[in-house]
């Protein structure tokens, strides 16, 4: 245990056992898949009609938005070029399916059906249509483990959507609300504010919803506020999600001479320790 905890040297063993175990896991997923397939098969025509209708409306809305956003994106990139700012990094997405969440009394994780063979990398964010779910923390060939937002000390740099205030959301263990840490009392926060990823760390692409502020406790005597949030993306409702193959280093500017002297080479943006402290 200590060897795994301190040195992470046992990954070959883990890989091999996983190679044996994964087919069995697939076999045991069959009853559930069968159940789901049959219940889908027996849905009535009426519900399907309704669903179709709402999907059509949604699609019309989205395609309208998409047309506009393409225009805006081109404009934005042009403007950025004019101002000689760094360009937004385009990224690919990879549809993944959530296989199961392993039972663990301490943390919540999910296992997805894509791995390093499909181009997934350690640290890639996973999201669904509502918002960010988590981050890849362990890779196998054809599967990967994803650590969810509520894992202890799991940090995501965020920005308040309303006013652009930057902060970091921390997970505080299974079943506990997320926390916004290190914020002074006077910070402009309200219950119901939506937190978006800020993209500062280079792991998460900017502008994806992460959490909503649910409760604020301001301690005047300690000049700090306890801000609790709830994650936006529901974990257990859907089976599908998207992995962002996002690597901002491709397009990062070369460091200028003045910066180069000060910054150490290990401290490059876009790279950080992906495994949180403590046992996961």
């Amino acid at each position, binding site marked *: *245990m200590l*060897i*795994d*905890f301190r040195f992470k040297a*046992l990954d070959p*063993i*883990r890989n091999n*056992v*996983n190679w*044996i*175990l994964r087919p*069995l*896991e697939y*076999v*045991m*997923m069959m*009853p*559930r898949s069968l159940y789901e397939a049959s219940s889908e098969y027996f849905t009535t025509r009426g519900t399907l009609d309704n669903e179709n209708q709402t999907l059509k409306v949604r699609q019309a809305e989205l395609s309208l938005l998409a047309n506009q956003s393409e225009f805006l994106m081109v404009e934005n990139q042009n403007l950025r070029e004019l101002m000689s700012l760094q360009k937004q990094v385009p990224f690919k997405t990879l549809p993944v399916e959530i*296989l*199961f*969440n*392993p*039972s*663990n*009394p*301490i943390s*919540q*994780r999910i*296992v997805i059906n894509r791995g390093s063979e499909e181009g997934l990398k350690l640290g890639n964010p996973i999201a669904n249509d509502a918002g960010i779910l988590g981050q890849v923390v*362990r890779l196998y060939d054809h599967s990967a*483990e994803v650590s969810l937002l509520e894992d*202890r000390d799991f940090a995501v740099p965020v920005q308040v959507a309303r006013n652009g205030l930057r902060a970091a959301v921390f997970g505080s*263990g*299974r*079943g*506990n609300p997320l926390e916004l840490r290190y914020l002074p009392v006077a910070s402009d926060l309200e219950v119901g504010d939506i937190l978006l990823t800020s993209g500062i760390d280079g792991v998460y692409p900017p502008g994806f919803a992460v959490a909503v502020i649910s409760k604020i406790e301001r301690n005047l005597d300690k000049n700090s506020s306890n801000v609790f949030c709830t994650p936006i993306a529901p974990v*257990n409702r859907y089976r599908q999600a998207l992995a962002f193959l996002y690597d901002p280093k491709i397009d990062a500017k070369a460091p200028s001479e003045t910066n180069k002297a000060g910054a150490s080479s290990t401290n490059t943006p876009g790279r950080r320790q992906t495994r949180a*402290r*403590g*046992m*996961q």
Partner: protein
Amino acid sequence: MIDLESGYILRPVNPLFIYFSLFCALLLNLLPIGNYGWVPDWLILCIVFWNIQQHRYVNVFTAFILGLMMDVHNSDLLGLHAFCYSLVAYVAVSWHRRIVALTVFSQALHLLPIFLLVSLFPVLVHWILSGSLYWSGLTAAIQALIEALLWPLANRILLAPQRRPRDVDHNRPL
């Protein structure tokens, strides 16, 4: 071995049945039920049972290997389940004479601490390694209770192939 409930001598065990039951328990553990604390750990039920009844076929090493598999499946620290399964297997082997002599329900009561140890071990290890105790993790004790309640059932199912047929030949009683 003697079945102390009915007083009859049990048939010899089929090793294939032992391994088959362990495999089934492993498969049951792999069922994607979700991350709930109370879901019983079928594998440890099976391991404890066979360690008590037939410790020549199932020993600490078997428990270790199966624990390693559960570690990988649960994405825990490698060795967490492996260690606590083999610890429990050792306890079961050393208690086996005492446990077998009891009735099924007091067996369950005696095995409750063993199941508690298995359920709470990950929480304790996390406590030692990171210094913070998860009180919510202690709900795993429910799992141990459920496992203890399942013990009579496990006893019935796993011993079924060894029980003698009911129609005993009265001309040649044994």
